[in-house]
């Protein structure tokens, strides 16, 4: 059965607009209520959950901190120990380990070479000035080549060689050669990985 609305169009439009306004009003009210509820929930969450939780944690921190104050001396000592270990590590990496350097130097000396004077200064270039005696130039060159191959030294320069012939009491003529070498320090301590090729 079909329903026929016999109301005039103006009244029909008015009723339609009233319904639409009612709907919009309802939606607006729901939106306002939702926002207000959200605010209430957040406020309640903060008051009843977040703040008590924060207060609990803070009181626990206070308790632990109070306990920690009894270890103040121990804490100072441990910090001091780590501070010194840190500085020592820094300084030791810059430090030259002379026993290793000199050991490497003497390991490179040929049998017929004698040192008379060795000056080492890390603040000047060349770092090393070595003077000594030998029997012939070949020994000095051998020594120079050996130093070049060392991991500790670099820039080895042959500076001078002077021959002095002296007659010994046994009347055998011995040849003595004074020489001078200059070189720089390449590394200050033994490294685990070799930078240069193996001698």
């Amino acid at each position, binding site marked *: 059965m079909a329903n026929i609305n016999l109301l005039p169009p103006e009244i029909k439009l008015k009723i339609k607009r009233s319904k639409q306004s009612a709907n919009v009003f309802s939606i607006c009210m729901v939106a306002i209520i939702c926002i207000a509820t959200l605010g209430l929930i*957040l406020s309640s969450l903060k008051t009843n959950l977040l703040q008590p939780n924060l207060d609990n*944690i803070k009181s626990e921190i206070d308790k632990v901190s109070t306990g920690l104050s009894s270890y103040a001396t121990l804490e100072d000592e441990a910090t001091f120990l780590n501070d010194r270990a840190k500085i020592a590590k820094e300084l030791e990496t810059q430090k030259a380990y002379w026993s290793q350097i000199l050991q490497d130097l003497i390991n490179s000396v040929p049998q017929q070479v004698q040192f008379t004077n060795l000056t080492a200064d890390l*603040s000047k270039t060349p770092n090393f000035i070595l003077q000594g005696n030998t029997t012939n130039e070949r020994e000095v060159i051998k020594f120079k080549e050996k130093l070049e191959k060392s991991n500790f030294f670099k820039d080895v320069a042959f500076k001078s060689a002077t021959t002095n012939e002296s007659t010994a009491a046994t009347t055998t003529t011995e040849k003595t050669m004074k020489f001078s070498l200059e070189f720089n320090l390449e590394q200050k301590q033994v490294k685990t990985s070799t930078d240069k090729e193996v001698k």
Partner: protein
Amino acid sequence: MSRTSWLFVATTIVIIGVIGFLWLRPVIASSWKTYSGTQTAKKDLTEASKKKSVLENLTKNNQLASLYDIASKYIPESSNSGELVIELTAMAAQSNLLVDQVSLDDKKDTATTKEEGTSETTSTPSSDTSSAANNEVNFSLKVTGTFPDFLNFLKNTETSSRLISFTAMTLAQETDKFTAQLTGKAFWKKGSSLDKTLANIEISEDTINKFQNLKTYGTPINLPTESGFGRTDPFAGY
């Protein structure tokens, strides 16, 4: 939509805006602040608990006190130049070297990371007196003996209880003896520059080994146990 509906929408937007700005915004800001504070506090609590646990473990470590003493000697809080002289001369004596001369010169240096380069000048004095600065005691030493003994002396200085670094040396064979003129520096620093964080109170095995392997030479002066003070004529021979 009718005019009334638009009016409702506009009013609702205004109400929501007012509620949001005057009430919701402070509530959200405050809740967020509390939440962030809780997260930070949780981290602090974890850190404090770990710190407590580390410190409790440290109390069981009997080595800590002796390690502290060794570290205090390795890089002391003051120049301790007297002990440095005792240490140097004792090391020389143990290596059968005769000490001809010792001299000291205190100075301050701030740069721990500065390269003691092979072709650069060594550290320069600075007026920085902050506790974070590393200070130096420069010394020079002349010893006589034999080269092997001198090498042994150098090895001893590398494991001695005071951190010593030689910067220059002149070695010479004189008519009947070997002489070595050395210049070097020892270090000292007032206090500690590390914060008391968890990472800075944990003592690693490396740190323990580092300080345990150092060796002390000579006996430091302990005034209360020393005797024989006071002379009528100090210009008279002794």
